[in-house]
């Protein structure tokens, strides 16, 4: 009895915690209490912790998927025809790096840029949720990276010193571009052991580079990528061989980064759009409202059904169903799961399925009572017997959900976000419903159904 109580309070504690997490950011509360008007705003706290030296921050907003928020999903194919096979992965990473930066410049919240290789196809997947002007974004992403070398102005004008933007604008083009750069690589200085980035120019580039470095020794020769400076090395000596080294206080990471960026310009991989999905925001918002309404009505009907059919036990299982719904939403928020429309369908479906374990248990209980066992014993037996069936039946659902989620990111299975969204909600649904269906309902029944005598088990 004491143990049951303890479990009960634990459930109440976690339920309250989840309720706080699950509730919307601001919830207006308005009602009349004893003739007085109560009207205030409930605000959800924002979690901002320092866990083991790591900042842990959650603002508990549901992450909305592209199909709800509206936005654009692109699958780009890198045309690797002119790139030697061994350099293709590097080229793909480089192209991803460039696109990532362009997207960041565009200022979309949480953009996703991923690479994927299927057979001998090299792809980049870009997801921009909430982008308002897809045509413009497409322009931004679609162009091939441009790398060029520019000289610092020897006599900077007054306004060039005023802002960084004007300063970089004052750089002069040298005519040396990514086309003349053969390759770059991360190396280590033989004397200091520090990482450096080496450049190698092609025959055309050797001449141009020699001319530029001879005439401008001591000045800064900046490397611009897409009109944006990525490195500002100073010419220390004239370089006639076309083999240059950029040294500085690089960390290995920084050197790698620069190398990738240089390669992006040096390897202009043309990209081509092979899939594009643009969804207006209005479409998703309406669908969400419709689905939520459908969900609320469905949930009420299920609760009504359970109460009518199972009486008090139905009430208890309805309570655990509500606990289930709140837990689920809290878990979505805690794990940062992106909610898509199929995901919402999965959630509603899992609510329908969550009662299953309860129904199994109640039916078993009924049978045990029919055999003349006392209520308490029948209840425990019912739970025990039902568990076998529940376990077996749910393993299959979990298996299917895993195929849909494709957690190992296997290339021969689906990787579509929509399918994943459904799979994830289904999986979470099954796991949480096992807990609420068994632990919560059992605890509630142990506590509140003691008084029912075995002579009058529920109707049926």
């Amino acid at each position, binding site marked *: 009895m004491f143990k049951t109580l303890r479990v009960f309070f634990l459930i109440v504690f976690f339920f309250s915690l989840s309720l706080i997490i699950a509730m919307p950011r601001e919830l207006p509360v308005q009602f009349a209490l004893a003739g007085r008007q109560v009207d205030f705003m409930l605000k959800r706290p924002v979690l901002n912790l320092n866990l083991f030296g790591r900042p842990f921050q959650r603002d508990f907003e549901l992450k909305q998927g592209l199909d709800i928020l509206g936005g654009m999903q692109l*699958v780009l*194919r890198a045309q690797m025809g002119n790139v030697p096979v061994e350099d293709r992965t590097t080229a793909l990473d480089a192209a991803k790096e460039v696109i990532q930066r362009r997207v960041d410049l565009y200022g979309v919240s949480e953009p996703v840029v991923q690479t994927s290789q299927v057979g001998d*196809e090299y792809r980049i997947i870009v997801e921009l949720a909430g982008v308002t002007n*897809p*045509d413009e974004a*497409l322009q931004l992403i679609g162009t091939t990276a441009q790398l060029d070398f520019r000289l610092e102005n020897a006599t900077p004008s007054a306004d060039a010193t005023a802002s960084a933007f004007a300063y970089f604008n004052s750089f002069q083009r040298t005519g040396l571009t990514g086309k003349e750069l053969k390759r770059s690589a991360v190396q280590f200085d033989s004397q200091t052991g520090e990482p450096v980035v080496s450049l190698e120019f092609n025959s055309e580039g050797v001449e141009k580079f020699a001319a530029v470095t001879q005439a401008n020794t001591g000045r800064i020769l900046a490397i611009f990528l897409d009109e944006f400076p990525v490195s500002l090395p100073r010419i220390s000596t004239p370089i006639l061989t076309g083999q240059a080294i950029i040294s500085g206080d690089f960390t290995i990471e920084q050197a790698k980064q620069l190398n990738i960026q240089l390669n992006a310009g040096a390897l202009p991989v043309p990209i081509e*759009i*092979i*899939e*594009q*999905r*643009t*969804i*207006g925001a209005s*479409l*998703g918002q*309406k*669908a969400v409202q*419709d*689905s939520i*309404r*459908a*969900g609320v009505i*469905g*949930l009420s*009907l*299920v609760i009504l*059904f*359970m109460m009518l059919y199972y009486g008090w036990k139905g009430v208890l299982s309805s309570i655990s169903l509500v606990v289930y719904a709140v837990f689920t939403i809290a878990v979505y928020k805690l794990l940062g799961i992106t909610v898509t*429309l*199929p995901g919402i*369908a999965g959630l*509603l*479906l899992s609510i*329908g399925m969550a*009662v*299953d374990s309860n*129904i*199994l248990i109640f*039916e078993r209980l009924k049978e045990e009572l029919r055999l003349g066992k006392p209520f308490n014993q029948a209840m425990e037996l019912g739970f025990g017997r039902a568990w076998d*069936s529940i376990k*077996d*039946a749910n*393993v*299959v*659902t979990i*298996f*299917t959900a895993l*195929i*849909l989620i494709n957690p190992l990111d296997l290339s*021969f*299975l*689906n990787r*579509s976000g*929509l*399918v994943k969204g*459904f*799979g994830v909600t*289904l999986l979470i649904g099954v796991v949480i419903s096992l807990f609420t269906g068994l632990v919560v309902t059992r605890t509630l029944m142990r506590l509140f159904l003691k008084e029912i005598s075995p002579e009058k088990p529920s109707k*049926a």
Partner: protein
Amino acid sequence: MRFRNFYFLFSLCFLIPGIISLVLFGLRPAIDFTGGSLLELRTEQAETPSREQVQEAAGEIYQVSSVQNSGAGQFIIRGVSISNDQKLELENKLSTTLGPLNEVRFETVGPTLGRELLQKTVFAIILASVGITFYVARQFRSFKYGVCAILAMFHDTFILLGAFSLLGKFFNIEVDVLFVTALLTTLSFSVHDTIVVFDRIRETLRRNARFSFKEVANAAVLETLGRSMNNSMTIIIMLLSLVLLGGETIRWFALALLIGAVTGTYSSTFTAVPLLTVWDDLAQWWRNRKR
């Protein structure tokens, strides 16, 4: 299990039209699988223009394969795969005859991607069915139960496929990635219920060795029927409200899940168990013949 043949007949009533439709018309694959473009537009005109009207408005620049209403003043144009620039050109051209229009959705899928997705889908279905078969076989340590559960699963699969073949033929409903998701979920639904019934049969069999297999099966079905119905009831309530109220975007997905849930429930009790008794009868007949 007295009405065994009636149950089979009932199943066939649903299976045969669907299979005929599958053979004759097949499924209507969405651009996810075939490649192509889909453009959803909102206009100020209440009436959806016909395919011919849209084709005429588009003129030379686009080959329209279908136009479908998708809500008040909204319609979906489908055709071959076009780029974003071509789409802008098309929208410009259309707006001269159809009036101002708003782009709601634009999707374009290259043909290679479509083929790739098709392969992935087929693979996922195979993986799921093989995995489930192995699980059921291991769980029951008996070939008999495993085969019957899988047959019931195929029963559900074909009813769902058949239903969408018919829907595709008569209502232009397309089969997309989400449909496949629903199909996979149906597989697990189907086995979910079957496992519960089979569990019960084995349990009763163990306790009451003196009853015939048919009697035991009968009793098990009767005992689990209430649970099975009630559980499906709650799932059906949720899905039905989603189909009716959930809006256009996931309506067909929800419908596919609903069909899967209904047939999954039906087949566990009225297909899997009768099949099991047929198997038992045949085994008995085989034993008698030998003797």
